[in-house]
């Protein structure tokens, strides 16, 4: 099926002048990208290369929101669309790409001079290598590729974690995820590569100790040793030596991103009516993880702009596009599942927060002392990875801050560890907040998407 141009989004000329007056994006290599260049890309080159991104189908949850007054969102789109171009340039300069998984921060990967990519970003990079596809074509290719992973590993893999892309030749140099309680597939998915066609990719597991790990000195020391091993392994690819100062500098940079995201969240949550829609909210909050654009420096410049813009919207009472003034506020727990935020809004709700990929952002790393130890201690302190009651206590705090009216716990089919924790977490949250909760299962093959949205709609109606 070809692209139906009438369904494609176009950035309106009316916003051009104001957008061009904005700030540049500063990339990690020092390059500056001026708004004029971004505008040209988003309105000319982008639609030709990646028409599927401009698709406006109601069923496309990642579609461009249309809230075009959010200049930072245009810049974030630009960064996502140019992922392949930028990574290819970096690789040509000898920068290795390292696959990351486990929900932890990417500070050590960048400190060692690599690009750290999580599964979603790895998928975006792979998909940006193909141009001219409609959403349907792009979607079908993705599904077909993912079958390779299911065939090679197991049908019970909840998340193929980019296996298919890497084994098909995507130029990832090293696969170095964190093991964690969050996901049991990480370790086995990593191990599966040893049997794959490609044998030129380095494999390393950063071993995350479990059970009150943040309170055990020996666990922190062990994890710090794992982080040192990680940077040494990346050094073998780059030929340089990562110093403690390199890691300290990276931690400072990432801390600024984390702090900005938390500041933005507090601003966003403080507004009587949300200043953006749910999709734009999720994009900014998650930017604090400093990973989504494969360039933390670029993410930081977008975050700074976002903070100012959100503050202005909250101050002046501007509402997010399409957000009802009386929308039911939903907080989402669990992993790897994001409903189509637009459809949630059509049903009268709005997603106001997630615990996944948020607990790492809210954890600031100590900046003085041994950076490996500090980073290890911070990562082992992520609320999401703590014993049930502690995780639930933190989640309840976030729910209260977000002023949510209801809580959904979502997990993917085949996700052993989040599904196992689901009932305990919601029971504890219910006890601490008194809010209604609902557990819903989804799957990576999207065969249950409509069921999920039916249930969410019913939940919102009940609220």
């Amino acid at each position, binding site marked *: 099926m070809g692209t139906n141009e009438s369904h494609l989004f176009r950035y309106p000329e009316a916003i051009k002048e104001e957008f061009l007056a904005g700030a540049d994006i500063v990339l990690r290599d020092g390059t500056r990208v001026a708004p004029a260049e971004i505008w040209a890309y988003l309105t000319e080159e982008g639609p030709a290369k990646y028409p599927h991104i401009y698709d406006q189908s109601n069923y496309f949850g990642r579609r461009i929101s249309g809230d075009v007054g959010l200049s930072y969102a245009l810049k974030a789109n630009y960064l996502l669309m140019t992922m392949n171009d930028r990574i290819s340039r970096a690789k040509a300069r000898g920068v290795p790409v390292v696959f990351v998984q486990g929900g932890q921060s990417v500070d050590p990967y960048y400190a060692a001079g690599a690009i750290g990519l999580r599964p979603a970003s790895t998928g975006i990079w792979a998909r940006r290598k193909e141009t001219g596809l409609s959403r349907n074509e792009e979607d079908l290719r993705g599904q077909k590729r993912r079958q390779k992973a299911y065939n090679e590993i197991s049908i019970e893999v909840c998340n193929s974690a980019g296996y298919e892309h890497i084994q098909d030749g995507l130029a990832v140099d090293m696969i170095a995820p964190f093991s964690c*309680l969050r996901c049991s597939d990480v370790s086995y998915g990593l*191990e599966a590569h040893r049997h794959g066609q490609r044998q030129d990719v380095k494999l390393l597991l950063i071993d995350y*100790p479990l*059970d009150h790990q943040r309170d055990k000195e020996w*666990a922190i020391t062990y994890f710090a*040793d794992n982080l040192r091993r990680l940077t040494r392994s990346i050094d073998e690819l780059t030929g340089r030596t990562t110093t403690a100062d390199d890691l300290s500098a990276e931690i400072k940079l990432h801390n600024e991103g984390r702090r900005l995201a938390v500041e933005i969240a507090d601003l966003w949550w403080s507004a009587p009516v949300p200043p953006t829609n749910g999709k734009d909210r999720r994009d900014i909050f998650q930017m604090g993880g400093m990973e989504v654009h494969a360039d933390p420096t670029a993410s930081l410049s977008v975050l700074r702009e976002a903070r100012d813009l959100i503050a202005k919207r909250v101050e002046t009472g501007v509402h997010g596009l399409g957000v009802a003034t009386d929308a039911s506020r939903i907080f989402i727990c669990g992993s790897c599942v994001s409903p189509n935020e637009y459809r949630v809004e059509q049903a009268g709700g709005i997603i106001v927060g997630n615990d996944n990929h948020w607990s790492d952002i809210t954890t600031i790393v100590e900046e003085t002392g041994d950076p490996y130890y500090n980073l290890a201690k911070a990562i082992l302190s992520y609320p999401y990875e703590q014993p049930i009651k502690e995780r639930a206590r933190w989640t309840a705090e976030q729910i209260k801050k977000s002023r949510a009216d209801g809580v959904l716990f979502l997990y993917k089919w085949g996700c052993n560890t989040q*599904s196992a924790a689901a009932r305990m977490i919601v029971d504890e949250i219910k006890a601490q907040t008194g809010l209604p909760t609902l557990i819903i299962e989804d799957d990576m093959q999207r065969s249950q998407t409509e069921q999920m949205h039916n249930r969410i709609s019913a939940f919102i109606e009940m609220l």
Partner: protein
Amino acid sequence: MALNALELIYKRLRERPQELVEARANGAKVVGFQAYNLPEEVIYALGLIPVRLGSGGDGDLVEVGGRYISTKNCVYVRSTVGLFAENTDPYIVNSDIVAFDATCLQTFRTAEVVQYYFNREVIILGVPRNFYLQEAHTYFAAELRHFVSRLEAISGVTLTRERLADSIALYNGIRDAIVRIYPYQATKNPAISWEQVFDVIQAGYVLDRREYLGLLESLLAELVQQRGAPVIGGEDDEARIFISGSTIPPGDKKLISIMQELGGRIVGDDLWSGLIPYVDVQIEDATLEALASAYLNRTPHGALPYLELATDRRIKRLKELITTFKANGVIYHTLRYCDPYTFKAKETKDILEKEGIPLLELHTEYAGSDFEAIRTRVEAFVEMVKLRAESEEAA
């Protein structure tokens, strides 16, 4: 000829629940555990009674457990949670403390559920995933020290070198006896079947360990007396099946009974509920550090990832055991949602294919709904293995 020691083991198993009730009434404390890398030696050394918890094969327990954990957890885990929910199993009822290790993340979650919903006193032993690194051994030794300190507080006993040395010697004796008994089931016209040896191994989960060692020694003496040294082998056209993959706990008889019915003879396994935990434990000293290292140096459990195929000791040991027990086919048993073993099924099949060993993966659970499907597949596999054996013999 009957084996008296075997009969005695079955008898003592029936008597054990009441014995535990009486022991507890006399002040003894029982540590129920479910783990793969927990050195039982430390529990015994502190005067506590170790009892391995868990059973399989009961679909109702799986359903009950699913209410608290999830339907995306393996049936063994769900069944374990079901046991705690029902609270009628004598070993669950009589456990004063419950210990788990973090080898399998689903076991870790089981520990959380048991603590949260059933208010049990739970102790967890952290297990490193990078088990082959020196720093992992240091971490695991520290975890073990922490674990022991909690048991010491419960038992009121301090773990001395002497106590630990005695316990290690006892457990070394048990491991040695099991390794020596095991080959008898793989001989021609065996005096003991694999299924019976499997029962004997699992009897050791609950029986008093010192008495258990005595029973094993008696059984071994009878086998030696009846058969002399074991000579592994069988009929020329025999389907000699090796079982690998997910755990088959006490009570899970589905696959075993299908195999018996269809004339496939199980002659070996590398299951964690079977032979493998007893095979290569080399404890160099009566210290927690040595104990920790010895456990990590064993053939690794499937939940601990190893990133280099060529040097993977699990694969190496699997091939060795298949050769030792002269198996000519492998049934790779995986429980639904048992990721540690399910994710390795295709890889294991590919590896063994290169060695000319056929592998059938059976992906199952405790419900009876797939009984006939499994029967059909096993029947075809056994027939194929027999035909191959016959044609190889003819050639």
